């Protein structure tokens, strides 16, 4: 579990290259910095300066080695490596609010950008004009799109937005691909069709619990594409299985809201958020239930020293508890909210390492095997 502090400012977003030797991240300003790994040290090798506003999303396509970035200046750039330099190509997104998140499709022939203009721009490259063209998915999105994830079939796209709903859209572009076969989410997939929409992310029918829901911060398809998980601002995590039964199982967690989520096997997910440590959730397909699997963080050795009477009363005065720990800080590795999680090795079906970056400017790579052995009651199904 290596913690590396890149900066003192939050890391807005990050993305890894194919062999995980380089990371592109935005240090909370208008640029993108690319760092290269030298043993245990990281050295900055490139600075991509083109955006006029904070860069909110970066995605590095592993096969074609192109980086797409989007920012609050309502633009997106596709960067290609020419020799030793990254050259940008502007993509006109036709949005009138900031772009919020961007993601290459699995085949890397198109990418999707979620924005505050209440729409998703699907951009593909048009050969005859030699530039990137975009198409919009507008209905029925009613607020900012916060997160996106592609289905492995390259056509379906899951979007979580601030109108409290998570939806699956079809982003089928006939110019660049053939008609997709049917999936569990549906068989007719014209562009822009909504194949799934979650109700407000609350428990289905609890004694009128007022399931208002919250902004959907993170979405993730499982490796097979049959399951979709999303986390929401009302501290819930939910999983839906595609198909006629289209059941949604959700869990109201006891932690602060989770901002990002990723499947690490077909049945387990890791999510992280404002509580500064990743947590594991296990989904039971047969029972249709999500359960809390455990907190994934390195247990810190706390030294037990005796506490004097004076300290006890001081604690009572300051913190209303006469507890033993005089610790001021957090026990977790990250010292501030974790905003993004990315799978490094093993893919979403059998992930062995994943990485988190957060608002404390640090990046931690987590190793699943050693987590399983360190935290004894943890079981990754």
């Amino acid at each position, binding site marked *: 579990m290596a913690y590396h502090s890149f900066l003192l400012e939050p890391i807005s977003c990050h993305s890894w290259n194919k062999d995980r030797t380089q990371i592109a991240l935005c240090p909370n300003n208008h640029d993108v910095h690319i760092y290269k790994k030298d043993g245990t040290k990281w050295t900055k090798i490139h600075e991509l300066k083109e955006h006029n506003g904070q860069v909110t999303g970066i995605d590095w396509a592993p096969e074609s080695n192109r980086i797409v970035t989007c920012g609050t200046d309502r633009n997106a750039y596709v960067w290609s490596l020419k020799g030793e330099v990254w050259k940008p190509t502007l993509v006109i997104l036709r949005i009138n609010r900031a772009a919020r998140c961007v993601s290459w499709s699995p085949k890397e022939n198109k990418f999707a950008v979620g924005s505050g203009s209440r729409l998703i721009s699907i951009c593909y490259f048009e050969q005859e004009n030699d530039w990137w063209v975009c198409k919009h998915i507008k209905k029925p999105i009613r607020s900012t799109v916060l997160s996106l994830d592609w289905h492995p079939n390259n056509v379906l796209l899951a979007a979580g937005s601030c109108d409290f709903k998570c939806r699956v859209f079809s982003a089928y572009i006939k110019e660049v691909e053939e008609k997709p076969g049917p999936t569990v989410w549906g068989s007719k997939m014209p562009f822009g069709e909504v194949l799934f929409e979650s109700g407000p992310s609350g428990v289905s029918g*609890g004694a009128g619990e007022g399931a208002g829901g919250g902004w959907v911060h993170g979405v993730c398809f499982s490796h097979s594409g049959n399951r979709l998980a999303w986390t929401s601002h009302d501290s819930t995590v939910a999983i839906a299985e595609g198909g006629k039964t289209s059941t949604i199982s959700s869990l*109201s967690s*006891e932690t602060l809201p989770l901002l990002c989520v990723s499947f690490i096997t077909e049945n387990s997910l890791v999510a992280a958020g404002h509580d500064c440590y990743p947590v594991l959730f296990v989904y039971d397909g047969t029972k249709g239930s999500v359960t809390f699997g455990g907190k994934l963080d390195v247990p810190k050795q706390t030294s037990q020293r005796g506490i004097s009477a004076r300290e006890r009363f001081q604690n009572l005065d300051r913190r209303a508890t006469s507890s033993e720990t005089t610790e001021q800080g957090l026990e977790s590795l990250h010292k501030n909210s974790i905003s993004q999680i990315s799978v490094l090795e093993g893919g979403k079906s059998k992930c062995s390492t994943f990485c988190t970056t957060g608002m404390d400017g640090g990046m931690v790579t987590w190793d699943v095997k050693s987590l399983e052995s360190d935290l004894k009651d943890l079981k990754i199904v």
Partner: protein
Amino acid sequence: MSKNNDSNQFRKVDVDEYDENKFVDDEDNGESQVGPDEAEVDSLIRQGNLMEALQAVLKNPPINTKNQNDRAEALMLKVLSAFKSSDIEKAVQSLDKNGVDLLMKYIYKGFEKPSENSSATLLQWHEKALSAGGVGSIVRVLTARKTV
């Protein structure tokens, strides 16, 4: 050349009002949810069957309707103050997740209008509900769009 004044008083028109794609909240007002049954709850309190009273008052919470909300709130406060401090923990344990969230909502509603002794009892309930529901239940009170 335009003058740069720091004041933005020049904007007298709210441009977002005229945007045709403006987000309009779905208001589902006055649902068929009637408030908890007063008579039933009162009789349960008098009988001393406080656990049942708590369950009864948490059933059918009126959502979004003005008058019934206040009545339910007053009833809730009566039930909560009727409990002895030592019994609070057991009562909270008997509730399921949704119940704890709903209880938290009522507690915060009660904080809004403090009366004689209400805050003290509410704070005791809050502490117990917090240990049962965690910070997540408070987040759900804050993000809930249907107020009880």
